[in-house]
């Protein structure tokens, strides 16, 4: 059996950053990923990455903006670490050869982003994720780190409460393999595909979160789902906040810059939850156009649009038939980011020994109830690095453990059950029904009635999942099988989101209850914890770490 010191699951920014760190420690590190590294969803990040590197900026100010943006649910010790370490991480990316956009003097340029008191978002035009993901891939190649490319992880194997390895399917052959490891880092990204309108890649199905739950590591704050205010009408493809950062307006059907009503100071650059709710309200009160409002870039001028937002322009032209130089773009809120995830400490460790997590699949928590734009890429780099270091330390102190045989048998059996079923329902039907109910009932605005209806629906879909059958019975590149396994993960994630949202009878950050429209610090200034026991989700609560900033009313 093949064994590694540190095994990293996921080759997005968080995973590759962690792997580089483990390799630097001289360890035998390898990455397992269900798509080639550069196909990971980090590649789609557009607007940028935050760091207080400007002359008059400070990490303290960055931390305060982040705490406020999180609606005080973010853990302040973690936020401080992230903001303090950010400049050094950007410096390191720069020295590796990152292609950041520059100012007139040739220094790294920074643009304003929502919820930030200072222009502190570094960017590579509107392709920051692409620039950084390719950069880290280059570094992974340079370090000679092994990559199990197009391998799908099916389970994490635990013995005596410690990790001993994983079971993964080589997608090309359909063969299940065991990989032993002293330490494992989950960096599997988000679950955006739980929702119908989503900016996320089709591969973002929350696999790692479900793997963690099954391994005994709890999730945290799953009810907090970020809806991005500007996604394209038909495809849900993202239009970066950088567009508003560069000065774009939001208009309703009667041509008003309606944000002046909702956030008189910050206007279009209020926090994302605020802007998404404002848009949704305009639309629901009849001042939308075909379920959308308009994002107007025209006054920025052709030159600036082409230089700073070239990808946005081609996306609008190719996918919506609209040239933003000439016309405003119809946009609406769409599911975008998971504030919640696998609970980790400041070093990336989960509750299970030897199991670490970083990136969007993890929850430290630096984003609390609402993430600021540009803070997620930063999260992947800072906490990817930290998880890489602590997993390496753990690997040096622990030995490879015996890999129990029954695990492979069990996993193989669970797959055979699906592939051998002769009749039943196609998984795609269940997937679509889930995505629809989630956007309708567990979206920007929530209430008791809709949430309970969603809960019932998920229960029904979970039952129906037990009768899913496949048309593809082959071994080679059976993507129908993969989608079916992903569907199981989506169902679990959806259940966590709904249960967390039902319990939380307040409105905070991205979680807005029409029946409880106020924030309630007395009862709810705490994190929700999710555990899986006998295939049932159990909930518990945990205090928030507050250092400097006492909760205040949040105004933009």
């Amino acid at each position: 059996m093949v064994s590694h010191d540190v095994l990293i699951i996921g080759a997005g920014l968080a995973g590759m950053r962690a792997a580089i760190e483990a390799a630097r420690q001289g360890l035998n590190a390898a990455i397992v990923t269900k798509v080639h590294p550069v196909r990971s969803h980090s590649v789609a990040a557009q607007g940028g990455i935050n760091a207080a590197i400007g002359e008059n900026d400070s990490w303290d100010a960055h931390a305060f903006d982040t705490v406020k943006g999180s609606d005080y649910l973010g853990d302040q010790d973690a936020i401080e670490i992230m903001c303090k370490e950010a400049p050094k991480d950007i410096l390191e990316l720069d020295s590796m050869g990152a292609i950041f956009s520059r100012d007139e003097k040739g220094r790294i340029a920074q643009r304003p982003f929502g919820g930030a008191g200072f222009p502190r978002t570094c960017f590579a035009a509107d392709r920051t994720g692409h620039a950084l993901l390719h950069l880290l891939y280059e570094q992974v190649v340079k370090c000679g780190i092994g990559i199990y490319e197009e391998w799908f992880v099916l389970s994490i194997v635990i013995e005596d409460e410690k990790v001993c390895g994983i079971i993964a399917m080589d997608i090309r052959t359909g063969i299940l393999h065991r990989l032993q490891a002293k330490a494992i880092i989950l960096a599997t990204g988000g679950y955006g595909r739980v929702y119908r309108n989503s900016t996320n890649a089709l591969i973002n199905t929350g696999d790692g979160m479900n793997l963690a739950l099954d391994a005994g590591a709890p999730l945290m704050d799953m009810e907090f789902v970020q809806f991005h205010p500007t996604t394209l009408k038909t495809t849900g493809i993202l239009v970066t906040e950088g567009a508003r950062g560069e000065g774009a307006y939001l208009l309703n059907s009667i041509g008003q810059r309606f944000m002046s009503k909702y956030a008189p100071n910050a206007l279009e650059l209020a926090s994302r939850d605020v802007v998404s709710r404002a848009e949704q309200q305009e639309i629901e009160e009849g001042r939308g156009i075909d379920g959308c409002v308009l994002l107007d870039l025209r006054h920025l001028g052709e030159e600036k649009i082409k230089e700073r937002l070239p990808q946005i322009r081609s996306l609008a032209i190719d996918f919506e038939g609209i040239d933003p130089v000439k016309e405003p773009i119809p946009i609406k809120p769409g599911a975008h980011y998971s504030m919640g995830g696998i609970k980790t400490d400041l070093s990336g460790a989960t509750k299970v020994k030897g199991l670490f997590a970083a990136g969007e699949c993890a929850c430290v928590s630096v984003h609390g109830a609402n993430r600021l734009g540009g803070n997620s890429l930063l999260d992947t780099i800072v906490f990817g690095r930290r998880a890489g270091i602590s997993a390496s330390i753990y690997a040096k102190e622990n030995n490879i453990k015996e890999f129990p045989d029954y695990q492979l048998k069990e996993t193989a059996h669970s797959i055979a059950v699906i592939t051998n079923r002769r009749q039943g329902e196609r998984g795609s039907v269940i997937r679509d029904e889930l995505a629809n109910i989630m956007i309708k009932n567990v979206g920007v605005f929530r209430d008791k009635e809709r949430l309970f209806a969603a809960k019932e629906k998920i229960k029904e879909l979970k039952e129906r999942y037990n009768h899913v059958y496949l048309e593809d019975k082959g071994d080679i590149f059976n993507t129908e099988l993969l989608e079916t396994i992903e569907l199981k993960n989506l169902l679990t994630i959806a259940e966590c989101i709904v249960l967390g949202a039902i319990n939380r009878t307040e409105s905070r950050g991205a979680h807005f209850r029409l029946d409880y429209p106020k924030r309630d610090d007395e009862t709810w200034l705490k994190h929700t914890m999710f555990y899986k026991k006998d295939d049932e989700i159990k909930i518990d609560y945990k205090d928030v770490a507050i250092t400097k900033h006492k909760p205040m009313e949040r105004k933009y």
Partner: protein
Amino acid sequence: MTVKGCEPFLQAYDIDVNNGDTILDALHKIKDVQDGTLSFRRSCRSAICGSCAVNINGAPKLACKTQILPEFEKHGRLTIEPLSNFPVIKDLVVDFDSFWEKVHKIEPYLTPKESSAKTKDKDGFWIIKKQDALKIDDVSNCIFCGSCYSACNTMAVDNQFIGPAALAKVWRFAGDVREGNNKKRLAKVSEDHGIWSCSRCVECTQVCPKDVKPLIAIEDTRAKAIKAGIKDNAGVRHVESMVDSVKRTGLLDEATMTVKTLGFMRSLGIIPLGLKMEFHGKMPLPNLFKSIKGIEEVKKIYEEVEKKGSRVKAGTHPKDGWGS
């Protein structure tokens, strides 16, 4: 379609199409409703991850970016096939192994040069002027979708050719003001199957969905290699013979050029390649050129250039080159 134990075949599907639907939407509709066995790669569905390139009516394109109706109206049909120049794994899924091997071979990472107060600011960040950043702006857009590799004519006859995507990546570093390893990097890609093997057919630049323009990158790299004095290879001799040919006749005599470039014996050795090229419609017919009108003009231009002591930059005009 690929089915185990069976030669590949085309399979027809009927689907309803809405205005704005992409080829990727169509593939999903087929997979979800008609045929769960259909396999293809996809991830971002927004033209940035490079997963979904396929041949659409014979040309490599991103399935997620290509709308069905305009494509259908133009061709009157819709044939979707796996990329060319890659072995097929199943249906539309092809094997990228050798593609990635070649990308890795060019050492695809920056080897930073020594920094000074001029190149870095007081905090240690690189200082990069806009015009320098622009030099690698196009190539830095590559998403490794393989479209160019699929369309490349040299690749079709020489599977060891490093290919347009990896060569564009070479320029990503060779053209970066921060790179400190250019001499070695340029020497390496000047070897066989490298920059000089490209036949300059422009296909790569034409099919690239991200406007990377690999051919321009290849030409910039060639120019830089020559400037760095890396001339002892077939490619440079070829360019020199081209310069000579144009000077003599005002036209390119490509058949003569092959002989000059490789020496007579080896020229015989490449005849099979020549035949293969002809098969692909790329081999120029051997020609006994008469000088074109205005040859005196051409000669004068060369004399001028030589007088000034500058060197003709290898092929700055992709479409005017030989073999196109």
